[in-house]
């Protein structure tokens, strides 16, 4: 797990800005698609969920399964306003905003399957801060800027053309090993 994160942070610091943007794209949503599977239908991306993986097991804490609560398990290192309460979804920026080209990564345990997932916290950009939505500040595994890929006290819209911070999504990009 830490090897992967070290790689992510190491790459970020060593690369020029342009390549940093490319890296974030390739380790972000594309990895998510590669690992979970997806189909493209009429230009729309639809995640494939062939069966219910919960096996009827519910997390001990109901809030951990409520994606509109700051206690939702994916938000273990999220510092920002929830996009799913501001016109977007868990993994989609609100209409009209832009997804950040770079992001920070958290490692969160899914209470249903007990596995640790790498979560990419992309900021959504180019709109005013969505204070209508819950503001969450959870910091499991968060590190200061000397581990930039694990740092959340900074505007991750920094590599976008429009850097106004709007809100944050939580995208599963891999399983922690």
């Amino acid at each position, binding site marked *: 797990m830490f090897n992967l994160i070290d790689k992510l942070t190491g790459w970020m610091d*060593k690369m020029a800005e342009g390549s940093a943007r490319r890296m974030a794209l390739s380790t972000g949503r594309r990895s998510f698609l590669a690992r979970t599977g997806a189909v493209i239908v009429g230009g729309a991306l639809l995640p494939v969920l062939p069966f219910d993986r919960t096996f009827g097991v519910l997390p001990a804490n109901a809030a951990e399964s409520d994606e509109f609560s700051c206690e939702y398990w994916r938000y*273990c290192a999220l510092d920002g306003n929830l996009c799913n309460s501001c016109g977007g979804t868990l993994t989609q920026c609100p209409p009209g905003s832009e997804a950040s080209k770079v992001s920070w990564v958290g490692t969160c345990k899914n209470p249903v399957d007990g596995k640790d997932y790498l979560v990419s916290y992309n900021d959504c950009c180019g709109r005013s*801060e969505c204070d209508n939505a819950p503001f969450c500040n959870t910091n499991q*595994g968060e590190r*200061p800027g*000397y*581990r930039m890929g694990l740092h959340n006290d900074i505007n991750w819209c920094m*590599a976008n053309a*429009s850097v106004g*911070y709007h809100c944050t999504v939580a995208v599963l990009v891999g399983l922690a090993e």
Partner: protein
Amino acid sequence: MLKLTHVAFGAFLVAAPAALAEDAFTPEQVSVKEAIDPGPNVFVYQEEWKGAGSIAVFAQDSLKLKGLMSTGAMGQMLVAPDGKTAWAQSSFLKRIVYGPNEQVLQTFDIDKLTVKGEAILPPKAAMALGYSALLRLSTDGKLIFVQNATPASSVTVADAATGATLQEVPTPGCWGIYPLPGKSGFATICGDGTFSTVTVSADGKTASAEASAPIFDPDADPIFIEDESYDGALYFVSYKGVLYKLDPSGKTVAKLETTELTAGVEGGWAPGGYQLMSIAPKAGVLFIQMHPDAKDGSHKFVAKEIWAYDLKAKKVLSRSKVEDVASLVASKSDTPLVFGSTEVGKLFRFETDPAAGYALKSAGETALTGFPLTLDLVE
């Protein structure tokens, strides 16, 4: 509104009895106060992420607001040691939250609360929460260091007098700026647990870097980027409450000593917050924000207590309960004042009692706005 006022005023003159019109009445004239009231100040950077932030200037004794110096968004504040000049690095987006971003280093005249200089920075300055280590003045006062993130890390070196950019120093994998004593340059914390000592030439235009031996373990117990200087040493604290005493004066940063702040204390206490500690040098006391039941992810928890720690005797002198302090700063006097800000817009003033282990006593409160996480003061 102005026209209506004039009409009404004219009608009043016509209709007023002669006796009333003869009464002496001197209309007031609007003007601008020339300067802030004298006396020591405490400065709070009221950061905003969707518009203008500001440096708020308060009287240390009364917490009376003396005025604001306006900045752009997502910025950092820096106050000169003489309390006469302040700087801010911040972002000015063409359409406030979108469009081209111009990052500006502003220079302020604190007495007049005016902007006396502006310089355009390379468009890389970190848009981060307020941390004093992200905008710094060199020890000789001649250079300003600006932390950049693209997210690749670098530091812009600027002329403190003019704001002109002199160079950009790459600092890959490192973060925070800690001016070197006695020479031009800075140390910075690196993600592998070392520090890098960056020596900058006298003209500010070239630099060289040297890595230290490992100082801390960034995986097991990372250090906060908040620093304090005291008696020639540089202090940091870790997530778990280990105080690091470092020597920044050599070719590389050297570890002098570590002590555990919470040794022998029950309750799972740990440091937390943002500008989470400050040293009162005459007292030799470190004031530090602490929270109980610490766990992975609690390192930004606001303080439930502020501990006063004797740096020479290496013991906790007092523990004072406080209301959710997120950042603090202590004054340098024999009986230090402590000012603390909260995430929900309060500025607290505390007096301390040396006879009671520098325990804090509440002595004032006022309102703040924005994200008020950076504080400074000059006596």
